[in-house]
């Protein structure tokens, strides 16, 4: 056991943790909107929209995240047309490619979580809102959303932790996140166990923190 290596690698790994957290927060932020959008399409009455939304979530949940990143990072660069548009300034950065892939991926899972939350809302609540003469938007923001948030919190907490682990794949497209730096240190020092303990410890601490935040929110939102 090489304690010195663990101590010297800790600052580097903590620095890389910031990259991981940035990737995580950006993709969760965008993913939430994507998820909400597709969840609404999924519960819409239009059959075409349902199928569209279902195929989106099936596509992203049925393939590995690594494939999705590679398609976006390596694949989209092949389309010459894209290089002439403003999109190219985003797509040539591995950082943004990773965020796009993560957002779409977590969006697909989030849409499933939100859909099942929307489906548990009792019809009576909506009917009550309608008979009170509320607008559609008011019904949506004041009835749908609060109930769905409460229903989906436990599952969404899991999704946050899964996504945190998912950000480790950013290291495959040359980004130096926590896993990327850990791999770099391992491959230069050949001391995998020490680095694993430090990097794994940081991940576990993050898991622990997210877990407790969600637990606290669950308590806050339960109306017993």
């Amino acid at each position: 056991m090489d304690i010195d290596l663990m101590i010297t690698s800790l600052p580097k790994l903590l620095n890389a943790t910031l990259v991981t957290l940035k990737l995580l927060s950006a993709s969760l932020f965008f993913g939430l909107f994507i998820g909400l959008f597709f969840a609404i399409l999924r519960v819409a009455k239009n059959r075409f929209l349902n199928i569209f939304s279902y195929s989106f979530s099936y596509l992203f949940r049925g393939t590995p995240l690594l494939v999705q990143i590679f398609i976006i990072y390596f694949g989209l660069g092949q389309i010459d047309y894209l290089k002439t548009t403003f999109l190219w300034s985003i797509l040539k950065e591995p950082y943004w490619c990773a965020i796009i892939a993560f957002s779409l991926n977590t969006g697909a899972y989030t849409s499933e979580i939100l859909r099942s939350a929307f489906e548990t809302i009792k019809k009576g609540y909506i009917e009550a809102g309608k008979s009170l003469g509320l607008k559609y938007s008011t019904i949506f923001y004041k009835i749908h959303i609060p109930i769905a948030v409460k229903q989906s919190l436990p599952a969404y907490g899991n999704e946050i932790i899964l996504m945190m682990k998912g950000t480790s794949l950013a290291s495959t497209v040359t980004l130096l996140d926590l896993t990327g730096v850990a791999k770099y240190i391992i491959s230069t020092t050949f001391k995998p166990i020490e680095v694993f303990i430090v990097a794994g410890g940081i991940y576990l601490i993050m898991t622990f923190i997210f877990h407790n935040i969600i637990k606290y929110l669950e308590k806050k939102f339960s109306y017993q």
Partner: protein
Amino acid sequence: MELLYFGDNGWGDELFIATLMTVAVSITAMFIGFIFALIFTPLKLSKFKLFNFIGNFYTTVIRGVPELLVIYLFFFGGSGAIMYVAQIFGYYDYIEINAFITGAFSIGVISGAYSTEVFRGAIQSIDKGQFEASKVLGLNKYIYFFKVIMPQMLRLALPNISNVWQITLKDTSLISVTGLVEIMRQSYIAAGSTREPLFFYSFAAVLYLFLTYISMKFLNRLEKNYSRGF
């Protein structure tokens, strides 16, 4: 489409073999995972605090740490650990472990943690009366476990085990970083040599979708079969 021809001119046969490799690694990993679950589920359900701690430590650490990091641990640390053990027995040569074994083992450790949780949940949700009844009937331990608990547990565990299978199948894409030629690695090679990354990675996605679709159909049928009468 000529990129997918079988033979020397296309990548069809290579990708086909790579798909079989993915399936083989997934099944091996799932099997290794079951062995781990068989060890750690009793530990988690045990009355002793120390055993509980060991079981919880395994599932918490593996489920809280990214899969890629676990794979790097075994990829870089695997042969070192084996050599260390071999040196105790007086073998000093360099030992290199096959990429398949490293990959299947590391994915197996990960899927084992998920399987452990699934089996623990399934056993805990079996009615207490069943345990007591088999005790009262004086069944021996073997019959008690294999004829009373196991069939009920399998029915409850199967839907979640099929989730674990899907996760395992998708996780095998990560062991391409160790150089094992499965779908992802083969697409990477093909994309590199033909400069058609979009086509090959999309095709890899289609292959994975195909595998998840087929296994979902199969597992759904198995589930129906197991829950007859419920």
